[in-house]
């Protein structure tokens, strides 16, 4: 059996080789180019002056005045959106899990924001909802006699967090609602017969059941939230000051506002390392609950 399997698996590997090589090149060529550019002084406006500078681009990027703020903003953004989507995601899913007329439509409406492009939803929020003069929120505020909030200049990061959370909450709801459907109804009914309150059922049955989907939501969202860019670009442009500059946006300013390819490449690599750190951390923290739960 063994001898027979060996050649065919070798043949299999051989036939798969071109595809694997192709994928490898697909991945490695941009990475190597970024590595190469990160060691060069390369400013698009100075074509004749490109030269090897070792690690200078990295020290330059790390000591850039906006660097620390951008890391803090990135983590704040990811963290707050995760908390909002998980907490409200669980609560809303439990609410719409109970039978009521029009359940299908409500669920569909809850999930639909996820399918709107980030740029479009950012524009809608910026111009139709949060605009301090003509937005819906301003109108509501004026209706009750309050001064409208100047969202993007007074609470810039909060505004971005609200927009991004609005986009990702449906994703969490989608996962949680699906998972709640697989919950053991007999167990729940038994608990009710024993006189357990809805809160106790939620605390001791629903939440443990949702542990695994919560882990999935946190993992998937973290990866995507580290890259939030379109929402910031279309609303605040990273400002005022550095108030909404996250790591991707900082790299964008290096590459396309300052035309400094070297520093931008260094920043790109820093972002890769950060993303990996977050991934490892999350895997350690949550991956365990995925295997043990």
């Amino acid at each position, binding site marked *: 059996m063994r001898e027979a399997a060996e050649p065919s698996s070798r043949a299999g590997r051989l036939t798969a080789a071109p595809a694997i090589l192709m994928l490898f090149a697909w991945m490695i060529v941009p990475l190597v180019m970024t590595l190469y550019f990160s060691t060069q002084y390369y400013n698009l406006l100075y074509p004749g002056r490109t030269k090897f500078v070792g690690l200078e681009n990295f020290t330059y990027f790390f000591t850039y*005045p906006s660097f620390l703020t951008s890391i803090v903003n990135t983590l704040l953004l990811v963290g707050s959106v995760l908390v909002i989507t998980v907490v409200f995601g669980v609560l809303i899913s439990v609410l719409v899990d109970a039978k009521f007329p029009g359940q299908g439509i409500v669920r569909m409406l809850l999930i639909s924001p996820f399918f709107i492009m980030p740029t479009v939803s950012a524009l809608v929020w910026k111009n139709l909802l949060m605009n301090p003069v003509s937005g819906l929120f301003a109108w509501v505020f004026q209706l009750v006699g309050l001064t409208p909030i100047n969202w993007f200049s*007074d609470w810039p990061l909060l505004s971005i967090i609200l927009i991004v959370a609005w986009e990702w909450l449906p994703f969490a709801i989608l996962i949680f609602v699906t998972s709640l459907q697989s919950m053991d109804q007999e167990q729940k009914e038994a608990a009710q017969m024993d006189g357990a309150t809805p809160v106790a059922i939620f605390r001791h049955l629903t939440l443990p059941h949702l542990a695994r989907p919560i882990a999935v939501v946190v993992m998937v969202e973290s990866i995507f939230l580290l890259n939030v860019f379109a929402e910031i670009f279309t609303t605040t442009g990273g400002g*005022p000051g550095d108030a909404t500059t996250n790591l991707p946006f900082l790299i964008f300013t290096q590459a396309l*506002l*300052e*035309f400094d390819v070297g520093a931008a490449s260094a920043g790109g690599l820093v972002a890769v390392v950060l993303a990996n750190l977050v991934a490892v951390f999350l895997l350690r923290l949550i991956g365990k609950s995925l295997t043990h739960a």
Partner: protein
Amino acid sequence: MKRMNPIHTALMGLGLLLGADAAGAATLTIGTVNNGDMVRMQSLAKAYEEQHPDVRLHWLVLDENTLRQRLTTDITTGGGQFDIITIGAYEAPMWGRQNWLMPLEGFSPRYDVDDLMPNVRKQLSVEGRLYALPFYSEGSITYYRTDLFAAKGLSMPAEPTWTEIRGFAEKLHDPARGVYGICLRGKAGWGENMAIITTLVNAFGGRWFDEKWEPQLDTPEWHQAVNFYVDLLSTFGPPGPSSNGFNENLTLFNAGKCAMWVDASVAGSFVTDKAQSLVPDKVGFAKAPRAVTDKGSSWLWTWALAVPSSSRQKEAAFEFIQWATSKEYGQLVAQHHGISAMPPGTRLSTYTNGEYLQKTPFALVTREAIQTANPDSPTLEPVPYTGVQFATIPEFQAIGSMVGRQLSGALAGFSRVDKVLHTSQGAVRRTMKRAGYYDQNGVPGAQR
């Protein structure tokens, strides 16, 4: 509908990119800014296409920042996407020196190159050779509401100082009735807030660099000027000024919400246009405010059309930019949009035209702002750079955007002006050091 094979679609897309001129007519791709005058040019250019049936114009109209990104990446990498580009007084001499632009020679006799304003022409030339033709040119001036001034018995001097402006703003600021004392640019960007801030710093006697390229941001002049600006705009300005650029302020002024506004003279034709402005006949014009000096207190900027060296249609492109910056084009604009709408600030003949002077209330103040700005000696103390509200060095883009971002944060109240200026000083010096303006020990001037 028949579904298209994706490969077929891709090939067609490639074909469009590579050889749209295969159809016979030469297609000129024009990249330009979404400012009012250029949008007008796009509609009037139909006349050019009628006269030149062998030329088709393909327009790409973008906002200033996006256009600059597209143009810079295209031209520095020799992409060849554009035949005609809209650039400013900052790019033209630098890109000309790099041979990224076609030197302009052999004008048609009707063009009358000597009619171009000398100050403007100099901004677009390298060693006396033109690399771009001026489409319109601007200085900065003070706009004010004559009706509001009259109601309070105030009168605007022809050459106001910033202290006087502050006094007026205090008296006219009336947010309860929707009128703010002063509107100024606060949106981050070297071409947005830094334009007005640099002229303010100049007026307070400051400069970007000393003769040895040492940044001067942590000097008393900068602190005074920026603190004055932040205080003035956050006390007597509209709400959320850190998101207002030129276009936002224009909208505010046209809606009658600004008692004063210091900005580009090119807005003159928009604030006096009955179709756009609620206050077309209530606008007064004065020089840009001065402080300890009037040197560099008004900026000088020119939007110009140029032909990249990478264009494959240089002859046709050169002919088009001559048309778009000609006297005939000015006449065409006058016919369609009224004589005050003629592109301002580029041709001497515009300002000898009696009808134009009579019907255009901002003509003389514009001309003076342009003629008195001196990019070769913009500040009270000597500087190693040219340019009034920017320094014509490649690094300025990085420096200006960074400082602009920091200062917009200070304006929004996220950090203190003094701290921001101190940080910016260090950051600007780092950028300059990286670009080789100082030697290994940080001593200025060694490598240049």
